[in-house]
């Protein structure tokens, strides 16, 4: 039988606010346990939540970015369940009236086609703390620093049909929240988390029972876990079994999914409007202000790069993959005055060197101005592309700006015809045999044979002679 996979994603993006969603405790990552959990985060008796304005602004920004309906009136609700990392015994979330309603994003597939994926809703909620299962005298330790960190839960429609599509969608959302500056996107630290609802069905049939996959803290794990789960479900059904609706944990070490604690065994969260919080009413002005301050989004940037800079679709996509990279490229292009050259260097030498060194763009030893400054010297013919690689390496090693290095190492291109002519003459004199061969050779073979002389001249000039002038002089003299 031919099976079809149906996937929906729930993405939890931690919003990059300074303080928590309902308290004034810091959200900074990595503090000692429970030092950033104030009385509100700890659910002390009598404390009350007050909503963070910035969290609301960020949620609305996301909604505007995906062209979603914005809930002008939204309500916080309590989701009730007991767990040690949930101090109040309920999570403040949104249920019936979320802040962001239906929207849509386009994902690009390998075959070059675009596919729209529906976003059902995005709502604000508070994060839980962390349970640490290392051995504390046979007990579990609870750190509540993360409790109360604002989350935007972005729920998709079950529109994806393969692990690859799911990854493309997750990457797209990841890109958008980073572009908007509302989430740092760090998956290792848990700032961006994906849960996948996966089911299979006979092609075109009714929806199957879904399993919810958790603990997918990289795009690779997301893809891997979905593929494994799809296989598991198909095997199960084909063996006469049935999929049960449950939460499954992806274990990267064992590369398997397994049924999780029955955290929601009864699955009765008893949602009701939180009486400690009032309805959030957004005035139209606020939404308009956010709309007009909206930064350029990935899709628009990609199109502009192709159009304005004359880049290929592929190059434009690579350079707009992250906001940082796009901004870096644009600065390099501006300084160098040649966008294609800038694109080649950013995607080539720079990306390669960063990769090799295991560095992030933000940690690059070369600023966009420095790299652009060197490219400017290629453009104005001070150095050749080949010499530029030498300069790049020196800059990477921290030897200074391009001009200093060119000067110090005497790498300036020789453009003085007299000087080049002297070298050419010397080469011809030293190689009478090759000169004779060239002259007697067939017209068609000559261009290939010319390479020998060019190579010799460049060698003699330590690569500094202007290649074009060398060519011209050689042709004339031969």
């Amino acid at each position, binding site marked *: 039988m031919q099976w079809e996979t149906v996937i929906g994603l729930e993405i939890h993006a931690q919003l990059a606010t300074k303080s928590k969603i309902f308290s004034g405790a810091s959200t900074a990552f990595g503090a000692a346990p429970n030092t950033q959990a104030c009385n509100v985060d700890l659910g002390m008796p009598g404390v009350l939540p007050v909503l963070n304005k910035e969290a609301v602004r960020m949620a609305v920004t996301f909604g505007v970015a995906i062209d979603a309906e914005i809930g002008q009136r939204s309500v916080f609700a309590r989701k009730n369940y007991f767990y040690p990392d949930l101090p109040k015994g309920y999570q403040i979330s949104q249920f019936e009236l979320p802040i962001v309603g239906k929207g849509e994003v386009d994902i690009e597939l390998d075959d070059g086609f675009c596919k729209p994926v529906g976003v059902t809703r995005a709502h604000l909620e508070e994060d839980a703390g962390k349970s640490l299962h290392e051995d*504390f005298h046979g007990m579990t330790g609870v750190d509540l620093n993360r409790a109360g960190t604002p989350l935007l839960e972005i729920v998709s429609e079950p529109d994806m049909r393969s692990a690859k599509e799911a990854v493309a969608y997750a990457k797209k959302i990841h890109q958008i929240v980073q572009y908007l500056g509302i989430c740092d996107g760090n998956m290792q630290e848990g700032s961006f988390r994906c849960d996948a609802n996966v089911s299979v069905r006979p092609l075109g049939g009714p929806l199957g029972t879904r399993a919810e996959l958790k603990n997918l803290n990289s795009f690779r794990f997301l893809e891997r876990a979905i593929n494994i789960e799809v296989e598991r479900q198909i095997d199960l059904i084909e063996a006469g079994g049935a999929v049960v609706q449950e939460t499954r944990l992806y274990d990267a070490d064992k590369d398997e999914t397994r049924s999780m604690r029955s955290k929601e065994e009864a699955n009765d969260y008893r949602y009701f409007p939180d009486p400690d919080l009032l309805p959030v009413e957004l005035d139209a002005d606020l939404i308009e202000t956010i709309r007009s301050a909206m930064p350029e989004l990935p899709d628009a940037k990609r199109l502009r790069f192709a159009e304005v800079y004359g880049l290929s679709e592929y190059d434009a996509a690579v350079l707009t993959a992250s906001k940082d990279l796009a901004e870096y490229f644009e600065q390099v292009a501006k300084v160098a005055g040649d966008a294609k050259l800038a694109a080649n260097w950013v995607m080539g030498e720079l990306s390669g060197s960063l990769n090799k060194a295991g560095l992030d763009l933000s940690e690059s030893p070369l600023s966009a101005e420095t790299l652009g400054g060197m490219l400017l010297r290629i453009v104005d013919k001070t150095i050749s592309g080949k010499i530029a690689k030498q300069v790049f390496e020196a800059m990477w090693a921290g030897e200074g700006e391009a001009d200093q290095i060119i000067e110090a190492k005497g790498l300036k291109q020789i453009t003085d015809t007299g000087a080049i002519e002297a070298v050419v003459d010397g080469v011809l004199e030293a190689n009478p045999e090759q000169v004779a061969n060239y002259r007697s050779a067939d017209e068609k073979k000559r261009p290939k044979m010319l390479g020998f002389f060019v190579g010799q001249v460049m060698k003699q000039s330590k690569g500094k002679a202007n290649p074009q002038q060398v060519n011209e002089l050689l042709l004339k003299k031969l």
Partner: protein
Amino acid sequence: MSLERSDVEKIAHLARLAVSDDELEAVTSDLSNILNLVEQMETADTEGVEPMAHPLHMTQRLREDEATEQDQRNLFQSLAPLTDEGLYLVPRVIE
């Protein structure tokens, strides 16, 4: 409405309340009596009436995004039944 013992067991579990077998009967009867009182609500015609969650027609006020809280872990954990290395301890949770 009359609850069964099994209903009460389910509710007590959801609410994480230990109710002993001895208490179960009395609790079941008390809760059933209360629900009978509550069910007088059925006499009200609420067709088209908006539910009212708050007495006042106010909207949520928003707080400026500022980290204002200081670390008070020592004070807070002095109230805790069991802590170690700054963590609250609970019986081992199996995932």
